[in-house]
């Protein structure tokens, strides 16, 4: 009924205040832990290893005191993509198996003069399933990171973690600044998008039924939205630059250094646990 209500199903990027252990960890520890655990899930080659990784991610959600259902609902918007990914890989990936693993299912298909096979091999099946599990785990982990850490904390963590690389010209401050400004404007631009869609709908614009695959036509239909949104964004950027320059912003050089309190025992403990977990997942001889 409420065709223009967007805010519901986006869990990545929302901060939900709380007092859990996860909330209280230093953002650098969380960012580091996030990368380490993600590495475990992305590189592990076993079904059970992946499942353990996903279970650990969900375990962190529970530890943070956030309803698991809420985090998993953040997966909902990408289910169509996951379905397409699964179907296509399931049907076709087996045809390009370099490992020469056993064929589990083959179905020749003839379409007029063309002949090809739907093939599922052990390896292609594993890759397909793992792909889905990894995407879900990525969403869960990213959600948990952003649900328990303020964007300020994250931006500071990124800037501090990248600052030693300033000598080789890595723009840590600029990256953190871009992240923070982009995040700050998300609600503003979301409001503007909603208002634009309503305004154009009021003029009779029809944005089509969801699920239509005629991309070019769909893109054309979106022009009354995309053009004003971009024009508006550029104008907004111009105004923001004027305001920032008026307050003497010239980039990261010469700014008051940002600081975070020193890492505590619990932060090191969290990093250590993440490392141990990942090493275990890598080295454990999983049966499957």
């Amino acid at each position, binding site marked *: *009924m*409420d065709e*223009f*209500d967007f*805010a*519901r199903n986006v869990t990545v990027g929302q901060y939900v205040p709380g007092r859990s252990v996860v909330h209280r960890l230093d953002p650098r520890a969380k960012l580091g832990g996030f990368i380490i655990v993600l590495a475990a899930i992305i590189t592990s080659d076993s079904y059970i290893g992946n499942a353990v990784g996903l279970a650990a991610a969900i375990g962190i959600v529970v530890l943070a005191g956030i309803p698991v259902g809420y985090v998993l609902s953040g997966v909902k918007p990408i289910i169509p993509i996951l379905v397409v990914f699964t179907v296509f890989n399931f049907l076709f990936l087996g045809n390009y198996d370099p490992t020469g693993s056993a064929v589990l299912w083959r179905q020749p298909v003839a379409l007029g003069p063309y002949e090809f096979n739907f093939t599922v091999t052990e390896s292609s099946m594993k890759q397909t399933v793992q792909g889905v599990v990894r995407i879900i785990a990525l969403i869960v982990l990213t959600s948990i990171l952003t649900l328990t850490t303020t964007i300020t904390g994250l931006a500071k963590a990124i800037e501090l973690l990248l600052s030693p690389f300033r000598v080789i010209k890595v723009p840590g401050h600029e990256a953190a600044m871009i992240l923070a400004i982009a995040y700050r404007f998300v609600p503003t631009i979301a409001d*503007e998008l909603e*208002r*634009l869609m*309503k*305004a*154009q*709908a*009021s*003029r*009779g*614009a*029809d944005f089509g039924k969801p699920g239509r695959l005629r991309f070019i036509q769909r893109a054309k239909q979106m*022009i*009354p*939205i995309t*053009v*004003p949104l971009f*024009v*508006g964004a550029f104008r907004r950027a111009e105004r923001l630059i004027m305001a920032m320059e008026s307050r003497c912003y010239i980039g990261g050089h010469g700014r008051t250094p940002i600081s975070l309190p020193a890492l505590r025992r619990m932060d090191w403990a969290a990093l250590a646990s993440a490392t141990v977990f990942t090493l275990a997942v890598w080295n454990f001889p999983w049966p499957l």
Partner: protein
Amino acid sequence: MSEPIVQVSGLWHWYLRGTPLQTVALQGIDLEIQSDDLAAIMGHTGSGKSTLVQHFNGLLRPHRGSVRVFGSDLSDPKLDVRPLRRRVGLVFQQPEMQLFDPTVGDDIAFGPRQLGCTPEDVRRRVRTAMERVGLGFEDFKDRYTFGLSGGEMRRVALAGVLALEPQLLVLDEPTAGLDPRGRRQLLDSLRAIHADGGMALVIVSHDMDVVGEMARRVFVLAGGKTVMRGGVREVFSRVEELRELGLGIPQVSELAYELRKAGRDVRADVLTADELAEALWTSSTSPAT
């Protein structure tokens, strides 16, 4: 008395209903708009006035209560709202932000083309709409949209809605951000459009001077409820109530009110400078004459 074109009874609406961030926006609104009305809906930002008018063309559906527009019941989930959008034209705040076509004429033609009008009909509608907002058809139709001034762009956006030939025109803060000259031009255009007939006008605004100048009937919203309604003079004479709501009254009316408080004999329902001048000085004949 003919049937009102908009009939709202006991309307409730929530933002983000069903999520943990749910808040109530409208709490039992009652309102009706007649076919030749010149009405204003007043209230603070956050009083629910924008939410209310978005029901008039089906952008929002009632969560409780009913909204009937041109006889169609908006509570009916099977109702196709698209025909409504050609009868009810809704102009949002700062409408110049919604322009997208690089050519003025084409942007205004968007609505009629979406309606499926013939090219001749589209041209006629664009021409009429442009004339109504004071943009000469030949002068402006081929101009680069984003090169116009802010006031001109706003008139292009308004023309884009007028080209749909709606029977009800709703404008949200039409003069926000305009300088005095732009404001005068816009209000003059709106008055002329209404005088031509065939269109009811509803202005949503927190600018008391605009409401005082334009409206005949006023609804005051606060906290999602209709707290005051009536003729414009009657509502603006209730100064203390409006002040308590954090709203004001037109500058001229406020002057009249302060004069009465200071003991002068001035009528309570002054709206324009002419009226106030008359009230103050026709009784005292000028010694010069």
